[in-house]
């Protein structure tokens, strides 16, 4: 059922690549290059996760699994709504609905910790969305004399006539609100808890899809700012938030004891990289969009691998997971690959996109940004390497762990597929993708 829906969704998205649909429902819905890009990422990752879930829920026919799948499909449809909405109000409704539909998914296991994580997630994200809502109303006020609507297309045409103080207020509130959802520090505090307590496939979806949907809403704000000629204002806030996010991620990754939390903080780091990229002008925007794809796939790999690890070791503690490569060679290799991809080591696509953003920083004479960017990247690489290599090498602490569960095929193939995508993107960007990236960057003034 889930797999069928996911396949159908991907088929629809694929057909959108060939024939771009026209705007419908009085212009409320429509697909531009940015939306298409995010939608495809969401679709591919969701398809892979639904493959993976077949192995994850072996005996999966009882009632709670049905509810789980139902909410998963809600989650997918609201994320789709976010990508195709052409109206700021509708966009926010979509983002709020994704939050609400992911609550039962995060709280699936129903332990004390997961309830705590759910409560934090709900509280912080709802307040964030409330602030974003206020920002949207400010945007409406900014255009009260001339635009009189919140349709993105109309706003873009009349952006120059918007009243400036209200526009700036609205940008600040929207950035804080959507930044909360995207996991930019210092509003990131829900993210490590939710990512570490949710079932691993859900963490993959949260990290790869949900954060990108929030990122898309920030890009929409960026579009309006660009059209209104307020790009420097917008960029300076984003660069600041981005650098803070990378710094916070570095502090908490060093010596992290929970490997899922480590990957969660790595999500914070990568969201920071995206924010910096968007703030750095045309080249940076191209790099950030490419990095968005790479990061989503990488996070998919990383969290699905942690799912495998958790199945085999029944622990999230780094100290209790040892000798992965010896006991579970395939998972071990995947873990190594996900570590290399997460920290942006050459053969993988993340390297290229991080390099493009660095180039943008240097060529734009943002030397301080470039300095902190490289510093944090290097330190985070060391931090993650320390943790992952300890897990991969050595012998298992508990000998009974081994041989109890084999690596099932449906839990391996999706990861392999995602790794291949990242590898391909590291060597070669297919022309159709390059085209759409150029177009999407063009929408943001790149």
């Amino acid at each position, binding site marked *: 059922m889930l797999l069928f829906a996911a396949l159908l969704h991907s088929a629809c998205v694929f057909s959108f690549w060939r024939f771009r649909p026209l705007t419908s429902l009085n212009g409320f819905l429509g697909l531009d290059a940015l939306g298409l890009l995010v939608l495809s990422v969401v679709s591919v990752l969701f398809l892979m996760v639904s493959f993976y879930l077949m192995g994850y829920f072996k005996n999966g026919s009882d009632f709670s699994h049905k509810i789980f799948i139902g909410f998963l499909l809600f989650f997918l449809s609201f994320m789709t709504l976010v990508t195709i909405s052409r109206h700021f109000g509708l966009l926010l409704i979509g983002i709020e609905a994704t939050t609400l539909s992911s609550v039962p998914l995060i709280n699936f296991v*129903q332990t004390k910790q997961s309830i705590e994580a759910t409560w934090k997630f709900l509280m912080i994200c*709802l307040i964030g969305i409330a602030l974003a809502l206020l920002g949207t109303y400010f945007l409406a006020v900014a255009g*009260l004399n001339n635009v009189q609507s919140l349709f993105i297309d109309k706003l873009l045409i009349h952006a120059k006539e918007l009243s400036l103080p209200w526009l700036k207020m609205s940008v600040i509130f929207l950035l804080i609100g959507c930044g909360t959802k995207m996991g930019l520090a210092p509003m990131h505090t829900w993210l490590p808890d939710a990512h570490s307590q949710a079932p691993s496939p859900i963490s993959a979806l949260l990290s790869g899809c949900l954060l990108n949907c929030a990122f898309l809403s920030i890009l929409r704000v960026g579009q309006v700012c660009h059209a209104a000629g307020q790009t420097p204002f917008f960029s300076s806030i984003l660069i600041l938030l981005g650098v803070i996010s990378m710094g916070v991620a570095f502090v908490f990754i060093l010596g992290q004891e929970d490997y899922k939390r480590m990957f969660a903080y790595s999500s914070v780091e990568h969201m920071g990289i995206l924010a910096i990229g968007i703030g750095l002008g045309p080249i940076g925007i191209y790099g950030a969009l490419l990095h968005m794809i790479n990061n989503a796939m990488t996070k998919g790999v990383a969290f699905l691998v942690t799912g495998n690890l958790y199945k085999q070791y029944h622990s999230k503690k780094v100290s209790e997971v040892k000798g992965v490569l010896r006991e579970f060679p395939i998972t071990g290799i995947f873990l190594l690959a996900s570590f290399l991809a997460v920290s942006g080591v050459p053969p993988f696509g993340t390297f290229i996109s991080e390099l493009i953003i660095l180039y943008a920083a240097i060529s734009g004479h943002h030397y301080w940004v470039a300095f902190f960017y490289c510093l944090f990247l290097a330190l985070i690489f060391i931090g993650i390497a320390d943790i992952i290599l300890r897990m991969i090498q050595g012998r298992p602490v508990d000998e009974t762990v081994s041989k109890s569960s084999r690596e099932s095929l449906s839990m391996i193939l999706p990861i392999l597929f995602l790794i291949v995508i990242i590898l391909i993107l590291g060597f070669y960007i297919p022309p159709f993708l390059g085209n759409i990236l150029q177009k999407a960057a063009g929408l943001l003034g790149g």
Partner: protein
Amino acid sequence: MNIWLDAILILVIILGLFIVASTRLGTMIQIFAMQSMILGCVPFFMYAKEMEVYIMIVALAAIVLRGFIMPNFLFWAIRHVSVRSEVSPFIGVGTTLLLSCLSIVGSFLLASKLVFPVSISSELVIPSSFSLIIMGFILIVGRTKAISQVVGYLLLENGIFLFAILLLKKMPLLVEMGILLDLFIAAVVMGIVVNNISDEFNNTDTMALTTLKD
């Protein structure tokens, strides 16, 4: 008409102060219900001369959802988890009141700096919406019981709703309704999670939620 609107807005702020100052959860919810009903009447006064059907629908929906259904749901939640009062608030009542009063002053200062592009029927709308939002924040941060935090969130939403009333003419009905419904569902989900917390921890004190940290 203008005087009536001003009077209503002042009443809304005073009720907000009451919510912030009370420690009994039942009283909090009752005052919140009263405030929401009064808030739902604001559109009738603001658009008295240019009344349209959809404005009435939004106002009535707000009154029913926020004034009746939501408080009843919250009452059900506190019956289920059997908490009556906020015993040990994180920030004391006196301090909370002082902060709220400061927030009202701050909102008036902020609103005087921002010029609303079109003329509005009352000067008090924007400052009172800002101060409700800040009071909601204070309640969320300062209280430890999960239900009081939910009330804080609802207070914040009331402030945003008050601001949204200004835009009622310009925004499509669909969006208004969608947002109203979304907020409603959000609060319901929060209530359910509150019940989960109480089932698992035997109380709804968010101070118990401290296992996840770095």
